[in-house]
């Protein structure tokens, strides 16, 4: 399925050598915005917007019918880890089914696993993961267990490929701080508040 790309700066979803970038057409019915401003474009089947910690409504006004073909997406990535194969596709109340279907088919054809969610802060994964990671960091501070024992528990007890602390440290605590700060600004609940270790990492300029 053909798509074209409008890009400004480096994309978190598609690093410079990602084959998805190389496979883009010059002109197509689907346009991807990677860091470029989004404007209504009724001539396209789908206008697909890369999202970071923000919501799709930051780019396209809620319930405005000129944005019926605008779809958001985020390729899940744990900080500086390589991007995963998961694409979270974001639809608004006004989003047309055919725009969602076109964007989904485009990503699936390119080999991604696609899930569809509504335009809520953190989408699926960050909404679920970040409170759990916050709890793990708090447990570490409170001496519940060592980092190694928490990670071992998750791997042996739950079959996870890695533990929460090793994943956070590998991906970057400052990144976790950025994501939780954005979530906390929206939800305002303590579960999303950036924890001490993440805030400290951000303040000292670590990744």
């Amino acid at each position, binding site marked *: 399925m053909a798509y074209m790309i409008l890009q400004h700066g480096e994309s978190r979803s598609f690093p410079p050598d990602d084959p998805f970038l190389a496979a883009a057409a010059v002109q197509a019915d689907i346009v991807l915005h990677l860091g470029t401003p989004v404007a209504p474009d009724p001539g396209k089947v789908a206008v697909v917007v890369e999202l970071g910690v923000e919501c799709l409504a930051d780019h396209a006004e809620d319930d405005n019918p000129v944005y019926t073909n605008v779809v958001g997406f985020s390729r*899940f990535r744990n900080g500086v880890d390589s991007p*995963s*194969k*998961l694409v*979270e596709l974001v639809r608004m109340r006004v989003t047309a089914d055919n725009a969602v279907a076109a964007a989904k088919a485009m990503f699936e054809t390119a080999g991604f*696993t696609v*899930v*569809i*969610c*509504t335009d*809520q802060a953190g*989408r*699926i*994964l960050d*909404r*679920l*993961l970040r*409170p*759990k990671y916050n*709890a*793990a960091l708090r*447990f570490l501070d*409170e*001496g*519940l*267990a*060592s980092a190694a*024992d*928490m990670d*071992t*528990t*998750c791997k*042996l*007890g*739950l*079959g*996870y*490929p*890695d533990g*929460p602390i090793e994943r956070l440290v590998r991906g970057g605590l400052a990144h976790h701080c950025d994501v939780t700060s954005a979530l906390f600004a929206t939800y305002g*609940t*303590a*579960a999303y508040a950036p924890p001490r270790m993440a805030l400290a990492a951000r303040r000292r300029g670590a990744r």
Partner: protein
Amino acid sequence: MGAGIAIVAARAGFDVICYDAVDASLLRAAKQSQAFFQKSVERGKMSEVERDTVLGRFTCTTDIGAMAACDLVIEAVFEELGVKQKLLGALDSVCSDHAIFGSNTSTLSITEIAAGCKRPDRVVGMHFCLPAQLMKLVEMSPGLLTSHTTFKTAWDWTVQCGQISVKTQDKPGFILNALLVPFNNDAIRAVEAGVADAESIDIAVKAGLGYKMGPLELIDLIGLDTQIRLSEAFYPVTLDPRAACPPLLRRMVAAGLLGRKSGRGFFNYTGNTMFGA
């Protein structure tokens, strides 16, 4: 759960006395143990002679007085503080002074359980994971009064059994359930909030994080009623809003949607279609 722990101990060469107040429960556990070791023979993991040797280490009894012969007693009774305290009190009067009491609790305080007996220095948390005969992890927790010697003796015993132990403080849910129960509730709340359907949430977790099972599939497996029970155990102690039982969970249980055991929970196990919550 008790049968699984007994298998772990017997397999490691320890004599095991299985006590239950109810004869039928003992019989069921004995049959499960026999079936497990028979399968081990069929899969070539042990010989018939080894099977018979291991099974020969089991003694089953409804007489709590038989526990007098034990150096280590691991309880795996119903997850209710009063029940566990009463059992430890009864064991106190029959067991030798040096015997250590291990508790397989997954949610209760070791210190509070130990308050049911006169040897709190010889009570230790030993939380095995289901199924204990297959899972290596044991969460080991000292209560406030647990002695260093008790903890070390129990820890060394798990090592002799081939288990991998981790040390946690005596806090609600220790590590595993303290992370898992609120996370599972968050997944239910995401469905309730219309973030995505159950299937999409599970796919995202598996594809994005490499987990073998999504949280909603896992809740279906452990039982939605069990998730309520876990939430009700945690929330009053922690007052963590994430541990509070989500309204959708209560509605689903009220509707008889208990997960796999009822044929339908977040997923329908006749057609494996998603529950449209």
